[in-house]
């Protein structure tokens, strides 16, 4: 999907201001504050709104000229709860399949198949309006993918889901992108979800693209660091690494969760997975292993002290921090794009 210089106005208000972006196969996160223009961008992709300038191409098709063809390739999970009152879950998914061109009995078979994959259980036979929010979300997701679209657009897909269901949903999205080559655009406010599943991200604010690029590049710290999770004498290990000339420091909670130090003081979902443990025995060390010698030295000290290593990986900034920086810069300079990584 490619958008080139699109401008959308509602009266005097410009909702999308010369937005240009490309969405590749894989999972792309679309994030931005409320009123940033995300929903309007989705409508533009579907050909639902008339653009003042610019154009959108979805799989080479113009959604304004060939909306039916485009929508045949696209599945949408809207943020709002939507249903046809009176239909059960399976009837709803079947209806969506039939509207998308899957004929007769095949639509029913396909609806059950997709609902099975979404783990919908027997709840599928209840009227949609009586289902829980999480179940409605599953039905909505099943309805969006039942016709095997090449692109899936999801608006807050994890809304109303419990942690287990949320993880399952993110797993399904990853499966669709990785195993079935789908192009997935996830519009969400849950930034840890973006960081955990998205390959690329687009930050919209004030109708403009403020930041775009791969998650890996955007969350890379200014100075590359490695993150070593260990159990044992952490402080002693840090001292020995420094003595070897390896820049190292024990990570404090604020190093790991900078957003927690901010005015909002928000904790993200990653807290539960990397919270440092006991002061004496468990900890995280941030170090710079710029040469093979430094790496070998680190392993030597680990071996000498008998420290157990849980993980060693490249350190990255939380995406939330990157996002907030982008918004602050957008407020400071409303017309400039902060960063446009390839």
């Amino acid at each position, binding site marked *: 999907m490619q958008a080139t210089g699109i401008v959308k106005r509602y009266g005097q208000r410009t909702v999308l201001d010369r937005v240009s972006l490309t969405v590749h196969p894989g999972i792309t996160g679309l994030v931005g504050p409320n009123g940033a223009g995300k929903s309007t961008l989705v409508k533009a992709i579907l050909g639902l709104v008339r653009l003042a300038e610019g154009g959108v191409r979805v799989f080479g098709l113009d959604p304004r000229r060939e909306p039916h063809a485009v929508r045949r390739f696209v599945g949408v999970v*809207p943020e709002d709860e939507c249903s046809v009152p*009176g239909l059960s879950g399976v009837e709803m998914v079947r209806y969506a399949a039939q*509207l998308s*061109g899957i*004929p007769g009995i095949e639509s029913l078979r396909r609806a059950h198949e*997709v609902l099975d*994959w979404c783990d919908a259980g027997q709840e599928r036979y209840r009227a949609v309006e009586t289902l829980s929010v999480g179940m409605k979300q599953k039905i909505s997701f099943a309805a969006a993918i039942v016709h*095997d679209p090449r692109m899936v657009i999801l608006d807050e897909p994890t809304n109303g889901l419990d942690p287990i269901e949320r993880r399952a949903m993110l797993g399904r999205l990853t499966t669709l992108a990785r195993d079935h080559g789908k192009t997935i655009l996830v519009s969400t406010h849950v930034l840890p979800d973006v960081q955990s599943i998205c390959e690329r991200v687009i930050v919209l604010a004030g109708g403009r693209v403020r930041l775009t690029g791969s998650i890996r590049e955007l969350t890379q710290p200014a100075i590359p660091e490695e993150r070593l999770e260990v159990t044992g004498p952490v402080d002693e290990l840090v001292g020995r690494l420094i003595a070897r000339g390896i820049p190292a420091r024990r990570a404090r909670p604020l190093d790991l969760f900078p957003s927690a130090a901010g005015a909002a003081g928000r904790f993200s979902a990653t807290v539960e997975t990397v919270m440092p443990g006991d002061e004496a025995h468990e900890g995280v060390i941030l170090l710079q292993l710029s040469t093979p010698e430094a790496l070998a030295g680190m392993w030597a000290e680990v071996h000498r002290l008998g420290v157990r290593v849980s993980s060693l990986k490249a350190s990255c900034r939380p995406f939330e921090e990157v996002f907030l920086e982008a918004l602050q810069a957008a407020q400071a300079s409303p017309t400039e794009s902060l960063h446009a990584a390839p």
Partner: protein
Amino acid sequence: MPLHDVGYRPWQGKRSGSLAAILVIAATGIKLAWTSRWLRRAVFFAWSPALVFAGSFFVFEQAIDEGRLGSIQDRARVGSNVDGVGILGRAIADALGQTDAPPADRHETRDEEANRTRRAVWSRLMLAFMRSPQAILLAIVVGLVAPALVSRDLRAKAWLIYFTRPVGKFEYVTGKLLILGLLVASITMLPALALWVAGVAVSPSIWVAVTTWDLPVRIIVASLALAIPTVFMALAYSSLTAESRIASFAWFATWAACWIAHASLTTADIMQRAQAENLAGEKAQSTDPSNAFDGGFSVEDAPRRSRRSNVHPRGPGGEIGETLADLIEGRGPPRGRPLAVRQFGWLSKATGLDDTIDRWAWISPYHSLGVIQAWVFGIERRSQAIFPPLISLGLVSIVSALVLWWRVDAPARA
């Protein structure tokens, strides 16, 4: 956990087009509407008047079969009921009195006469059937179904389901129109066609189907004339609000208010005319005391009361000085207001026997539809009677269609 979870699989079958989407929307809409107990009752009830009318068809055809056409025409001439089939028998009698006569120089055979009278009677019975019970039931059935069709989608945000799929406004609106169109057809077109089939079945010969071939076509056209403005108007109301109760109220209020307006204006006209007649009577009385007007109905003043010059004077019992021989020999059909006009005004209007021009018909959808249907059945031919309702209904249909077209995807554009 499902027993046969095959995971997510691609689907590469042949996809159906827009027509299938329209049919799916219509089929699902009918299925959902049919869950209403009141709708099922209304549709069932809508077929019951057909049984009464079928009885009239039987009686009429039986009279022809037994060679009693002349006899019932004679009875019609004197304003009697026909073979005890109630008020419909009187409608038949009056219809017989107003059949178009052949040219004076042409002598009709008995079969030709039977065909001519059959066409007249069947047309008027069909018109009465479609206008009196069916048009009212149509308002009720459409009022039960239509208000929820679009407003419910707006409230439940179902438009997100439609317009994010290969469904455009055209498919959506056509699907919704089809839901109502099929329901309207099930209470107007289908019973009327069944009535025609019943008429053919009880007639002396199957060839009656050939001689009355145009009636099924007229029934279909009359049903369409009934359906198009009503369906568009009902859906337009539904599209203007997310509360179906409001749309429902607007629908019934429109019919009631327009009916009341029509009745008020018509009554005012009648009172004005009566006043003028009284004034004229008083004037005549003052100029010619010998020709006193007593306010009653006398043989002498009948021609003056009639709107046509060739009307035969008639008394309370029927036409005076007219026989069946007059009709057969082509001396012209009686043109006066038949007895039923005065005794069963609504029936006479329904069957097109009351040939006064309803100049306020265009105000009321019910009365406008009646005029248009009478035109379709070949009973009303006067342009001054047809055009105002035709323009009125045409405007209502166009404006409703535009509103509907503009409103259905308004939330998607917002």
